[in-house]
């Protein structure tokens, strides 16, 4: 089942996709009596852009929360880099190299853009407590190295002009970009994006799409995203999982999914009987 051995595939635009990075097996999540996710399995491969789509309330965000450790499923297994992951706290998952953004932006409003992005690198800092407190030796060298890494991310996402601005004052679209920057600063192996384009105008959506593609292309970061805008999803992603009422109803390349009758029904609203 865990096919790390299979060598992946080549995408339409010629990118080589590797073996399995993350695999979810028979995941079931319940909130009391409500079944949010029912027996779902899928995998995310090294270097691909994987999308999860579905109508409202389909369980997409819950799925992402399971991957990032915010929810622990009642049943099923989560495998990361060929190892089964036990129950973990979200901060431990983050330390494994899985970064995320939130549907309703979770930034540190009181801190500047630069400080917000620096928090993404907290786990890259290894200097001891005393060295930190005295601002001496290893701590100082680390801070400089980390600042350089952060500046690279800032350049990459074109937010140089707002780096000293308190995040609370930024407009919505830029907040979304800063949140992406903070996630990128951690140099994650797997990047989870929960509706990265929700509430954006067309221009902002185009920018964000470009950034997502560039991140994947330049850093080779594996990306798993949730998105409502079908056009965007079909353009961006290599493979798509479709969810409806907590169940998986489709899985494959965008064109395969588009042709799937069950998916069409779910989106056009056929009466469930």
């Amino acid at each position: 089942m865990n096919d790390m051995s299979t060598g992946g595939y080549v995408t339409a635009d010629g990118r080589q996709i590797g073996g399995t990075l993350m695999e979810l097996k028979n995941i079931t999540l319940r909130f009391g009596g409500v079944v949010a996710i029912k027996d779902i399995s899928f995998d995310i491969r090294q270097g691909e852009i994987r999308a999860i789509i579905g109508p409202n309330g389909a369980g997409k965000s819950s799925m992402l929360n399971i991957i990032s450790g915010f929810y622990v499923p009642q049943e099923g297994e989560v495998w990361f880099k060929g190892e089964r992951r036990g129950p973990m706290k979200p901060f431990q998952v983050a330390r494994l190299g899985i970064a995320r953004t939130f549907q309703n932006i979770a930034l540190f409003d009181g801190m500047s853009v630069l400080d917000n992005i620096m928090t993404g690198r907290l786990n890259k800092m290894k200097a001891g407590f005393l060295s930190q407190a005295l601002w001496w030796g290893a701590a100082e060298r680390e801070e400089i190295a980390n600042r350089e890494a952060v500046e690279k991310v800032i350049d990459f996402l074109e937010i140089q002009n707002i780096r000293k601005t308190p995040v609370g004052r930024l407009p919505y679209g830029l907040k979304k970009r800063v949140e992406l920057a903070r996630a990128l600063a951690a140099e994650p192996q797997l990047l989870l994006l929960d509706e990265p384009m929700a509430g954006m105008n067309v221009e902002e959506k185009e920018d964000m799409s470009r950034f997502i593609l560039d991140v994947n292309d330049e850093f080779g970061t594996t990306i798993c995203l949730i998105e409502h805008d079908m056009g965007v999803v079909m353009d961006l992603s290599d493979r798509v999982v479709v969810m409806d009422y907590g169940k998986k109803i489709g899985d494959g390349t965008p064109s395969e999914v588009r042709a799937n009758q069950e998916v069409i029904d779910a989106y056009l609203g056929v009466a469930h009987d």
Partner: protein
Amino acid sequence: MDQLYFAAEVMVNGLMTGVMYALVALGFVLIFKASGVFNFAQGVMALFAAMTLVGIQQGQIPFAHLINAVFGTHLHNFGWTVPSLLAILLTACVMVLLAFLIEKLVLQHLVGQEPIILFMATIGLAYFLEGFGDVMWGAEIKALDVGLPQGISDTVDELTLNWLGYGFFIDRLDIWATVIAALLVTALVLFAQYTKQGRAMRAVADDHQAALSVGISLRFIWVMVWSIAGFVALVAGIMWGTKSGVQFSLSLIALKALPVLMLGGFTSIPGAIVGGLIIGVGEKLFEFFAGPLIGGATETWFAYVLALIFLVFRPQGLFGERIIERV
């Protein structure tokens, strides 16, 4: 002219009392910022720290009364005294241990609860700690002396007498308290601003979910913040304990910190300091000018009235975050 100098002297003394208020308020602000908990036990923590310090310094046997009552022994002292600096270090360790236990036994079980529930828990904690301190070290009034100079400073008296023709009476302990408080505040601000742990602390204060998502352990940060608050309580305990003896009334200085917080805002470190200074100077000057007209003893209520006025006109305090209601 002398009247003016006297007023100035009163003001300087007020500033120094204000620093002591600020020191207590600071402990509140640290915990409130990082965990949204209003720690009612902060004053008792200062009392407990001062009691522990005296106990360790004088080589008291902890729980001596309890042991004697149970076993019929007559133990009181180990028979040694511990140097001040070492005793302070040991007490700091006790405060860290206390922070760890509070997180483990109380906070951890209340994660995600309403602020009012956490507040109630700290009230319980205050009463527990007060009784625990008495059982551990005895309830009698103790003198605390860690070698801080006390009494009127002759240097200041002489200097001002030569310059102004009027000698200022200023307690040396107040001068030291001001210097130490200033150092402590600077250190705290630098720590919060420039270290990894400080950055993580501010992150937790801002948004728990986001903090978790960048790999910050909330438990570690909470233990750290309570430890720092415990250390601030220790410093406040040393200052107030040296000034007026280690006794129950020490824990009541926490009540003086409330108006300071209302003035400065619950979330601002500079606010705690400025608030403390305003209250300190305000109550001394008010007593000086208005006291004789209305029968004196204004210091007991002035701070609270000032805080009430602030609540009406600027409920978020001088430096607090603005409260904006969106419809």
